[in-house]
């Protein structure tokens, strides 16, 4: 809270590193004296100001300010648009760093106008170095509030639903793995290409992607088919039947081209261990591999409405997606010791009848056993284990020395 009522010169010029701690007045023209209310900021009259709204949001709820005296206070005013505002947001541990953070974001975002592709590209490169989220199947825009440079979002739930769906339809694990691998690699290629010179077109047009070489456009085509199979709106590809899309992906050329884009990387299908280095996100590569281990089909448990309470835990386990029908459930349980990462939740039921699914489930479990070792292998090559994937058994001998 400002002690003196003088205006802060830094703030008037644009930014003050002391933020709310500053002993001078941080105001804009709008609310010259509202700071008088003090640190706690009564929302009283200020709250009323906020209620005005072009089409009347909130007009009827003036009671919102009940009991929340801090609500609606104004330190927000000291920040200009596009400035990074989180200076104060982690007060205890980070009190030393606010000015550094502010400058970092100011250089990037404050004055960026997309007039120069080179500056756009610089922002993109910086973003990818500093702010690569763990989830890769995402759209991206280098400028806030501007359209995406990379489109084609896939959310966690969509990927999971597609995986559950595929397994239920009886798609082989290999094709599921291939599909997801291609998804990831084509998306990574898009990101790579965005970093290249001449790659960023400062506009909202999709043709961003088109000037690229055949590599990415082919990757796009596979992605597009995948996208259609996931019911996504990717760039201008006609929807392809679900199975066809997957079948083609297994042997599609883009995977070859992608390896060249990445240089010396081997093809993922050849060596499980190589995949780890293939993808930028190591953790994600295992995603593809260990799906091999997945081999279960859920049987449809009866759609009942249990009003009297939940069934016992034992029963719940049985109807657990990962233990399909009773017979294959037992079968799978015996294989548990061999492969900790046993199955995905594949409890989707297609219209196929249960017996067929059971048979397939058992068969796949058999296949799974054989593939267990190859799938497991990847875990041991990994440098860092994330929570939830620590294997339960000792490494195969092949890895004892290597790791």
């Amino acid at each position: 809270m400002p002690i003196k009522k003088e205006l802060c010169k830094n703030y008037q010029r644009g930014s003050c590193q002391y933020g709310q701690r500053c002993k001078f007045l941080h105001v804009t023209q709008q609310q010259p004296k509202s700071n008088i209310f003090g640190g706690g900021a009564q929302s009283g009259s200020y709250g009323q100001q906020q209620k005005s709204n072009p089409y009347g949001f909130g007009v009827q709820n003036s009671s919102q300010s009940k009991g929340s005296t801090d609500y609606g206070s104004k330190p927000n005013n000291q920040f200009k648009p596009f400035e990074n505002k989180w200076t104060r947001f982690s007060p205890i541990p980070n009190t030393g760093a606010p000015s550094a953070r502010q400058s970092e974001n100011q250089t990037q975002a404050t004055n960026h106008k997309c007039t120069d592709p080179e500056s756009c590209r610089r922002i993109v490169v910086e973003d990818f170095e500093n702010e690569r989220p763990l989830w890769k199947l995402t759209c991206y825009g280098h400028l806030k509030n501007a359209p995406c440079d990379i489109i084609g979002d896939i959310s966690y739930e969509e990927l999971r639903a597609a995986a559950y769906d595929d397994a239920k339809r009886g798609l082989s694990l290999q094709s599921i793995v291939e599909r997801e691998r291609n998804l990831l690699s084509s998306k990574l290629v898009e990101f790579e290409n965005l970093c290249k010179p001449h790659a960023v077109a400062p506009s909202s047009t999709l043709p961003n992607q088109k000037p690229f070489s055949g590599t990415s456009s082919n990757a796009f085509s596979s992605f597009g088919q995948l996208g259609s199979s996931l019911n996504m709106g990717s760039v201008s590809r006609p929807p392809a039947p679900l199975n066809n899309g997957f079948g083609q992906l297994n042997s599609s050329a883009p995977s070859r081209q992608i390896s060249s884009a990445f240089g010396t990387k081997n093809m993922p299908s050849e060596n499980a261990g190589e995949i780890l280095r293939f993808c930028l996100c190591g953790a994600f590569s295992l995603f593809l591999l260990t799906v091999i281990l997945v081999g279960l089909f859920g049987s449809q448990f009866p759609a009942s409405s249990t009003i009297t309470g939940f069934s016992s835990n034992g029963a719940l386990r049985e109807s657990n997606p990962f233990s399909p029908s009773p017979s294959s459930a037992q079968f799978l349980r015996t294989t548990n010791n061999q492969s900790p990462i046993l199955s995905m939740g594949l409890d989707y039921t297609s219209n196929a009848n249960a017996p067929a699914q059971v048979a397939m489930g058992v068969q796949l479990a058999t296949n799974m056993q054989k593939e267990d070792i190859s799938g497991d292998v990847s875990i041991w090559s990994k440098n860092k284990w994330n929570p939830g994937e620590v294997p339960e058994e000792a490494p195969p001998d092949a890895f004892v020395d290597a790791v």
Partner: protein
Amino acid sequence: MSTFGTATPGNPNPNNSIEVAQPPSDSVSSLSFSPKANYLVATSWDNQVRCWEIMRSGNAVGSTPKASISHDHPVLCSAWKDDGTTVFSGGCDKQAKMWPLLSGGQPMTVAMHDAPIKELAWIPEMNLLVTGSWDKTMKYWDTRQPNAVHTQVLPDRCYALTVRYPLMVVGTADRSLVVFNLQNPQTEFKRITSPLKYQTRCVAAFPDQQGFLVGSIEGRVGVHHLDDSQQSKNFTFKCHRDGTEIYSVNSLNFHPVHHTFATAGSDGAFNFWDKDSKQRLKAMSRCSQPIPCSAFNNDGSIFAYSVCYDWSKGAENHNPASAKNYIFLHLPQESEVKGKPRVGTSGRK
């Protein structure tokens, strides 16, 4: 708490929250509390919608499973009717069901889409259910009629939805955010591109409907005001990051009384924030698995959150044989959720 006897690193409950009895057997996709009583509903990837009664006496909290229904496919979203008698749930079976659970009734299908229903909400002022789906539409349903009252085309697949009458904000794929004035639901009030650079994960409307929060996969939350004259109050902040690892913000919930908010992320942590003083009020300890969803109860005295795998690292990290799915209840202390004056008001330069 590693009951399966392995060295699974990390404590799933480092905050000593109360564990809900008989949690779902697969990941939880949504949590919602009844607006009238302490009934908690959880939807799950195991196709079930479950309801618990939460009893509280002082600091002792107990949960009793009450009832459950099944869908044919994983269930993604849930909402209570405002009278606290009925639960709506929707998911990958492309349908939404209405379940009058307090009266012991059977569920009824009330909505259909061409693709999984990702979000739904009950709008008491209009007596309509709104559903948002990956088929890029949003539909309004009068539960007594089989056909949608209105279909609204969205710019892309619906990823997130929040309603505070008359404000409704829909977050879609490719960073579009569409704002609706529910007094005129057939017209988009505003369509903006997200202030964040990556995929939108969740949105939450301010209790006073002046704006909304948007969370993304890049460990960032944007605070956005609708009114152009308040644009200077917009800002974004980083959260749910650990060194160079950037986790997504999966859930945003406003406290019903104090109007502070909580974020929950794929790093397994949840935090309480005050957007007006721009402070983090409380950082809770990280759980060993991500938190895909969370909810406050009607008076903010209970914060429920689920600790289970959210697919943030693909199928490889999904180990159903040993996967544990938890729902925890945290009793927020006043210091954690009550807004505070700005830090360092007595500090000197």
